[in-house]
């Protein structure tokens, strides 16, 4: 098997606030293989956006990385200076598409101006070269080429999101990280955005996608691998088919159950309705962090914390219900 595209190892990162240390990423290993769409799912506030920032090596106070490595082609991004990451990684090897396309673009610049400012940071290109590169790419993706000469407010939400994805990947990065790219869009626009991303992968504009979301159904349509995150930890991972067909962790089940029987109001607000609240990451519960909300809670769950144990066939779970299977 080939070396993975991106590998996060033993990642721990916290926000240091006056209130205390918020352990948003608390011992995470994650792997994005080549030619894959990896889904990262969890409720809001579980630390997935922080994990994304760590994987991007976008660390700004009060966030601090306490330990771990992020290997891209064998280079640890966390040991490279921010200036160098910005020049040689972001937009070149790894691109990021933010959650809110509405505010992601400078409202007073035409889109092409932003693109010029971005591309010329990475490669010496003339303005005309940037414009023609941009136009060719939009044509390839069936987007109207005149949109680059517009201001952000002149584009509809879905168009803006697609244009952002297109301009984020102009330099053919290996990995595209998308954070809730569809949650603000209506269903038909969602489909267009998803299709465009898969087309880009097929056309080898990008190799892999890391897709962050709280909506499992979206992952079902696109992901080849999934990671389920809860309270700063990965609680389950594996090939998408296998996890969706046979979820093992009670949280995964709850997450699937709650979105598979959607209540209209909660769907509208984009809420996942699992009874109870996500725990505080300053004072996480003793033992298994999910135990206060878990319907299958046992004595041991309150006392000690389950490790994330590999089960074979690329799967793993952090739950005492399944640890006996491994032991036995």
């Amino acid at each position, binding site marked *: 098997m080939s070396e993975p595209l991106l590998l996060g190892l033993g990642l721990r990162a916290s926000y240091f*606030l*006056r209130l205390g240390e918020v352990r948003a990423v608390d011992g995470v290993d994650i792997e994005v293989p080549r030619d894959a769409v990896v889904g990262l799912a969890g409720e809001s506030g579980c630390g997935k956006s922080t994990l994304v920032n760590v994987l991007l090596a976008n660390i*700004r*106070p*009060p966030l601090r990385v306490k330990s771990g490595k992020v290997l891209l082609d064998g280079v640890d991004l966390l040991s490279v200076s*921010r200036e160098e990451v910005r020049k040689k990684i972001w937009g070149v090897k790894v691109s990021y598409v933010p959650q809110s396309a509405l505010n992601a673009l400078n409202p007073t610049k035409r889109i092409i101006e932003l693109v010029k400012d971005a591309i010329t940071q990475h490669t010496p290109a003339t303005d005309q070269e940037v414009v023609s590169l941009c136009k060719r790419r939009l044509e390839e993706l069936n987007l109207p080429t005149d949109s680059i000469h517009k201001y952000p407010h002149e584009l509809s939400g879905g168009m803006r999101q697609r244009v952002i994805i297109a301009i984020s990947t102009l330099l053919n990065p290996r990995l595209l990280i998308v954070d809730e790219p569809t949650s603000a869009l209506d269903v038909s626009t969602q489909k267009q955005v998803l299709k465009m991303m898969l087309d880009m992968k097929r056309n080898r504009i990008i190799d892999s996608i890391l897709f962050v979301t709280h909506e499992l159904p979206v992952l079902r349509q696109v992901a080849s691998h999934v990671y389920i995150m809860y309270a700063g930890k990965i609680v389950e991972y594996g090939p998408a088919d296998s996890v969706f067909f046979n979820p093992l962790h009670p949280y995964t089940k709850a997450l699937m159950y709650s979105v598979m029987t959607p209540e209209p109001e909660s769907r509208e607000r984009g809420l996942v309705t699992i009874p109870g609240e996500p725990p505080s990451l300053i004072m996480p519960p003793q033992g298994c962090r999910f135990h206060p909300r878990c319907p299958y809670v046992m004595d041991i769950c309150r006392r000690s914390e389950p490790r994330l144990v590999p089960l074979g066939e690329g799967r793993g779970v952090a739950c005492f219900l399944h640890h006996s299977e491994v032991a036995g």
Partner: protein
Amino acid sequence: MLRSVSKIITPELFTIKKLDASLAVLLTVFALGFVGPTVYTVQPTAVVGPLESPPSSLYPLGTDAYGKDVLAQLMAGIRGSLQIGATAAAIALLIGVLIGLMAGYKGKIIDNLLMMLTDIVLLLPSILLMILVAAYFKWRDPLLVSIIIGVTSWPWVARAVRSQTLSLKNREFVNLSKMAGLSDFQIVIRDILPNIASYIFMAYVLLMSGAMIAETGLSMIGLGTTQGVTLGNILFWAQVLEAVRRGLWWWFIPPGATLVALAASLLMIATALDEYFNPRLRGS
């Protein structure tokens, strides 16, 4: 060299120091105005000494062109300015809050009309309006001056209260009160006002510092109160009787410096309150 953008966006501690220093300055000025006269019993309006005497052990801040004691005037002026500032701010606050609440809560036509009025008054510079109104009154007691300042300084309060009311009026607890059959008046009193109380307090502090500066401006152009002493009319007489060109620094520096100390400490207190109540400014 430019620093990384990221360094700018870190959370900061609530600036306690700024608040402490401002409160200390404010208390000092208050003490000077209210406790001072019990210790230093010279009459502010009495001719007590030689004309234009520089500060000495006998006259700590010297005397003016009439031989009146500047320190005694300063202490009376602090009280006079604070009185006008407090009254004018209360009037402006009352108008601003009423209009803002009505516009924000009632909405529609009332909102449009009131906001149009507000924008018109906002566009006309308040200091010019004050001068214009005051010009028609021969005798102006402190209350009249306060009213003139108050009725021209409310528009920004109305705007701010309106936007706060707008954001509150569709909240759940307001809807509950509506369902419970409370009248608009009761809802405003029970649900809206308590929620903007901190803001109203801040606005009052700012209005007060603005009103004291406005009083000084009116006085300087000869339209201040014709009764009693304020920091503004000490400065006015210093200006009219050429204190600056004749080098009588003790006559015009202390009242101005006191005014700046008062206004600036009030502003800093309001800023500190704003940082406290409005966490957006504080950082994540």
